[in-house]
């Protein structure tokens, strides 16, 4: 019996995709699209452009796979591609009011254990706090905490120095920690 591509680790799939294996790339797309769309949605400040942004970023990524240096970190690399596309969209968007995050009132569910309810409320609070951050602080936060990029990689993406990344990230953390104080 043969090993399934669907269960292969990222590094192997990315290596195959680099060599032109579109089936391996398809597995990566299916595996990471949910994360990439969530990331794009946050990066764009909650707009409905996320699907298009990720779609274009994935096609671009396929063409630029030669530039992927660390196959094991393909997820972060894909997130970088999404961030690049999202930045383009943000820049060319006509000046208009920032779209508020869509209301996420789910259907009422049966009473949940306190810990779970508190957990959901905590992530929701974090989500609100992130949405309220200044854009440049939110950007570094997302690139560090969600995309898991290094300071150097973030610096390259944002075209600033690593020292600037370091300072901005610290300010973002300070702001988020202060706002989330009741959850500490």
């Amino acid at each position, binding site marked *: 019996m043969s090993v399934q591509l669907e269960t292969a680790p990222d590094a192997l799939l990315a290596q195959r995709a680099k060599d032109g294996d579109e089936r391996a790339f398809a597995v990566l797309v299916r595996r990471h699209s*949910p*994360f990439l769309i969530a990331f794009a949605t946050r990066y764009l400040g909650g707009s409905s452009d996320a699907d298009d942004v990720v779609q274009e970023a994935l096609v671009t990524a396929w*063409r630029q796979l030669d530039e992927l240096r660390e196959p094991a970190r393909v997820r972060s690399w894909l997130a970088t591609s999404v961030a690049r596309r999202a930045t383009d969209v943000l820049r060319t968007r006509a000046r208009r009011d920032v779209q508020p995050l869509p209301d996420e009132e789910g259907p009422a569910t049966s009473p949940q254990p306190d810990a779970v309810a508190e957990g959901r409320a905590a992530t929701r609070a974090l989500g609100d706090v992130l949405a309220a951050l200044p854009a440049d602080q939110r950007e570094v936060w997302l690139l560090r905490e969600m995309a898991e990029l290094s300071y150097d990689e973030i610096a390259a993406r944002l075209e600033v120095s690593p020292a600037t990344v370091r300072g901005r990230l*610290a300010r973002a*953390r300070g702001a988020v920690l202060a706002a989330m104080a009741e959850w500490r």
Partner: protein
Amino acid sequence: MDDTIGGSGRTLEQLSAYFDAGRSPRVAAIEEDAECRAMLASMERLSRLTRALVVEESGAVDAGWVDRVLAVVRDEVRAGRDLPLEAIDDRTETTVTEGALRELVRRAGDEVDDVLVGSVELRIDDAPALHVRVTIGVRFGSPMRARADAVRAAIDAALAAHAPAPVREIDVVIDDVFDAGVLDA
């Protein structure tokens, strides 16, 4: 104005960078200060919370959407270099693409039980002769040497009718072991 944390003599920015460096190499002034430790613990909690947020917000993706992405990808064959097959005369030549050979090699290796091919490297030297180097992952518990040999034989057989130059060597490197969780269909 002193904006350092606790008695550590370090600012929030330094603490934040220390956190991102994995708290290594260990800085005693930070690790032995209660306020710093509390701050670092909060940063860690925030990272965990962010990961939880990502999981929550990663919903199911519409299959049609994925198919549209893959349709574009499928159309863009990344063929790689053109390798000379035969110079029939001074106006007629045939070639085979690197991409075609890589796919052939990958397929051959994949057919061996318990094996998944990773990377495929092709090199043609001046002889001309073809050098092949593949990395493979092997299922844990499977006999490694036997699998590597089987892969080599399969690649050799597959290339016989398609290689642009005689095959000089096939190097098979095992660089991954799949645990028992990597199951079949």
